[in-house]
């Protein structure tokens, strides 16, 4: 048997924190054969990124305590001196980081950054040769007009191109192992599909090994041979992708799989009776809704002539890639933003041009749940106070009644009513999103616009929040507008679907029809780009 490319034995990583020591990785062992591809999957906090950083010795001088053994291509990473470690980093194993904007030096041309890394490992290379190499790898990862774009700075690249540039940097020194930490998390599905294709091609071409760190089982299923499922710093299960997805041995893996939103399956248990719903009252109607930002030549039309109706008690899903105008549309629907053109009617009354004062009677009926539950809650107010705010503003209830109602709401969204006096930082992401939902529910709205309500959450938490929204809708007869870039999540909740691109609606219809028989080529492309667990499962 050949020597493994990566050999991790009984690895433990402990971080000192204010609340004592936290064991991020706890007795993990695994091996990767040369040229093999392994995905580390798990929810946030499972320790998967900590492992990836450990492979390059990046925990050094951070105060973290690392025990066990890490060998990469024969180098003992934990025992290596600085010089050997620098050789391993980039030369033997190269890392592709998440968030490609912050991972590149904003002041330097991308080509220069790649050239610098190249020259660290090819000391004999001239400046010119290094620069040529940078252009070569940029070209390889599909940057058009690479020679010219090599002189661009990171902010002049799009998100997808930046991610490509980071991969190019990794390629620059011909490493034997590529470590990719959530390489597609910040990207749209179509761009994600291109990046995953690129990684696959590069592996086939160079024969390098791949360790992919991801929380997305769909991404993993498409790109690697083996899966290692992690939870709380330990390995739960390891096996070939197909076998593992087909017949997971462990309950945790099964739960994780069950929570993954499937694009071709509507989740059982989410409001079925909506089909029988007879209430056809049009709640909100937009006609030719338009929003322009800026003036003159710099003006951008974010939403362009969009018409949409939302009926009482139904869910309208809005999907589209970043920049498609879906958030702007959502904000206009609840009148957080004034339309610059078109008509917006709520229960028959025109609210599109109303002033803040004129809107006051409608504010409690139109609510919004925001994407980022961290920044949309005031960190200095207890969550009870935050939820009570809209009730106080409405001014109909006394203090005692408000407190009682907030406790009811907390219970309704699955939180402990005793949590009234706790602060946002004491809650997890999923719990905070529940707080956000409770706050939106407080004034008894008829319509809630949810803007990417689950995109910051793990799959299992995602599933819980989606289920909660469904239950609330059934019990309270709410109308929901559900905005998301994740097509599978939207499918699970929507009665009707709107696909947006460049500020316009390109396709609209009953959700199942749109997913099963998409008419517009753009929708077809979007759907085709979604990584599927099922393909891998079917092929097994």
């Amino acid at each position, binding site marked *: 048997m050949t020597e493994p490319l990566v050999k991790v034995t009984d690895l433990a990583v402990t971080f000192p924190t204010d609340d004592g020591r936290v064991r991020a990785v706890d007795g993990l062992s695994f091996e990767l054969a040369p040229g093999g591809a392994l995905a580390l999957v798990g929810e946030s906090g499972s320790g998967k990124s900590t492992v990836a950083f450990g492979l*390059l010795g*990046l925990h050094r001088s951070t105060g973290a305590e690392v025990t066990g053994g890490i060998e990469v291509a024969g180098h003992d990473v934990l025992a290596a001196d600085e010089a050997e*470690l*620098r*050789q*391993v*980093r*980039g*030369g033997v194993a*190269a*890392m592709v*980081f998440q*968030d490609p904007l*912050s*991972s*590149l*030096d*904003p*002041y*330097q041309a991308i080509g220069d*950054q790649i050239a*610098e*890394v190249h020259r*660290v*490992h090819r000391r004999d290379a001239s400046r010119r040769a290094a620069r040529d190499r940078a252009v070569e790898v940029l070209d390889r990862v599909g940057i058009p007009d690479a020679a010219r774009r090599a002189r661009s*700075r990171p*902010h002049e690249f799009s998100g997808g191109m930046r991610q490509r540039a*980071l991969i190019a*940097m990794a390629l620059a*020194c011909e490493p034997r192992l590529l470590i990719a930490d959530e390489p597609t998390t910040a990207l749209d599905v179509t761009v994600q599909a291109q990046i995953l294709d690129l990684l696959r091609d590069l592996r086939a071409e160079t024969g390098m090994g791949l360790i992919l760190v991801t929380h997305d089982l769909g991404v993993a299923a498409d790109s690697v041979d083996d899966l290692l499922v992690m939870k709380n710093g330990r390995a739960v299960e390891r096996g070939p992708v197909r076998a593992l997805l087909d017949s997971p041995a462990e309950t945790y893996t099964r739960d994780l799989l069950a929570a993954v939103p499937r694009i071709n399956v509507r989740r059982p248990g989410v409001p079925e009776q909506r089909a029988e719903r007879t209430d056809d009252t049009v709640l909100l109607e937009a006609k030719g809704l338009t929003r322009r930002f800026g003036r003159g030549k710099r003006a951008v039309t974010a939403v362009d002539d969009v018409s949409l109706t939302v009926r009482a008690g139904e869910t309208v899903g809005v999907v589209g890639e970043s920049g498609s105008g879906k958030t702007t549309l959502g904000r206009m629907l609840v009148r957080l933003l004034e339309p610059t053109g078109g008509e917006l009617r709520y229960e028959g009354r025109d609210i599109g041009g109303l002033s803040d004062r004129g809107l006051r009677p409608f504010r409690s009926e139109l609510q919004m749940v925001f994407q980022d539950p961290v920044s949309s809650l005031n960190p200095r107010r207890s969550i009870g106070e935050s939820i009570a705010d809209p009730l106080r503003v409405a001014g109909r209830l006394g203090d005692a009644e408000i407190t009682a109602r907030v406790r009811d709401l907390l219970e309704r969204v699955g939180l402990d009513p005793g949590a009234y006096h706790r602060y946002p930082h004491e809650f997890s992401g999923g719990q905070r999103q529940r707080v956000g939902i409770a706050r939106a529910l407080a004034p008894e709205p008829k319509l809630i616009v949810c803007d990417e309500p689950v995109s910051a959450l793990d799959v299992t938490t995602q599933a819980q929040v989606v289920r909660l929204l469904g239950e609330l809708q059934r019990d309270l007869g709410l109308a929901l507008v559900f905005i998301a870039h994740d097509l599978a999540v939207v499918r699970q909740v929507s009665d009707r679907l709107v696909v947006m691109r460049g500020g316009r609606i390109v396709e609209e219809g009953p959700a199942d029809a749109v997913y099963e028989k998409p008419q517009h080529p753009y929708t077809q492309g979007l759907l085709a780009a979604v990584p599927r667990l099922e393909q891998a499962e079917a092929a097994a």
Partner: protein
Amino acid sequence: MSLYFLRRALGAVLVLLVISVVVYAIFYVAPGDPAKLACGPRCNPEQLRQVREQLGLNDPVYVQYWHFLQGIFVGHDYSTGTGTMHCDAPCFGLSYQNNQQVTDLIAERLPATLSLSVGVVVLWLLLGVGIGLLAVVRRGGLLERALIWLSLAGTATPVFVSGLALMMLFCAYLEWLPFPSYVPLTDDPEQWAWNMLLPWVTLALLGASIYARMTRSSMLETLAEDHVRTFRAYGVSERAIIGKHALRGAVAPIVAMTAADFGSLIGGTMLTETMFGLPGVGQMLVRSVQTVDLPVVVAVVMLIGAAVVVANIIGDTLYALADRRVALR
């Protein structure tokens, strides 16, 4: 880009106009009689009347201000009794003390002030960035802590304390340096530098402390950023990371602040100039205030205002050039 400069230039002119109104109001319109000051201590009513006529003090205030502006842009003619004396633009009037043109007086004293401020800026940049860099390289160590404390002490020590202490040490006690006296650069460059050394060091120590702290903090900030982690993960040495990437992040704020500080220095050297007896603009301002020589005070204040405004424009431009993500608008 050219549009940007046009807008900034217009803005600068506007700011200077506002300054001129304020300064004019404070010094000429406020209670007190400029004519009496101009006329001097021994002055009979007839002379006073003549002076008032000559200075145009009988005109309404706005006409006086208009003449003041006119003087700045096109010059001004003064009757001297026997004939007229022309004062070229920019004319800020005649000194009450010796009837010399204020512009000439300033021009005489500008070299000393410029010698001082240019030298100080160069020195404090070298010292400040150097110390900041050293603190970052040795971060977490004893040296860093010592440097931080020293720079804190430097920031907290007034110039007249450090200046006197240095002068006593190097000029009186050790006798390594001459007691500073100004020798024009054009006369004898070596003596010029030798004599300027103490004033430079005194004022630079204050600035260097501030710049060292700023350099250190903005470099540490950069070192904590994700892209530094990227280069570490690719085996780039710590020295290259600090020298290339972290220092680069500190350049923009340092450049912008230097330009702005240089502007303030033109007017902020009063203490140092007075202490070391340098015949600069700051020293002249102090003396003019003491003798209530209004035209000189007004002119120097306008000069300081102009220097600060121009320096800030230059600073902003350099900042945008150093950090391309900042758009010039």
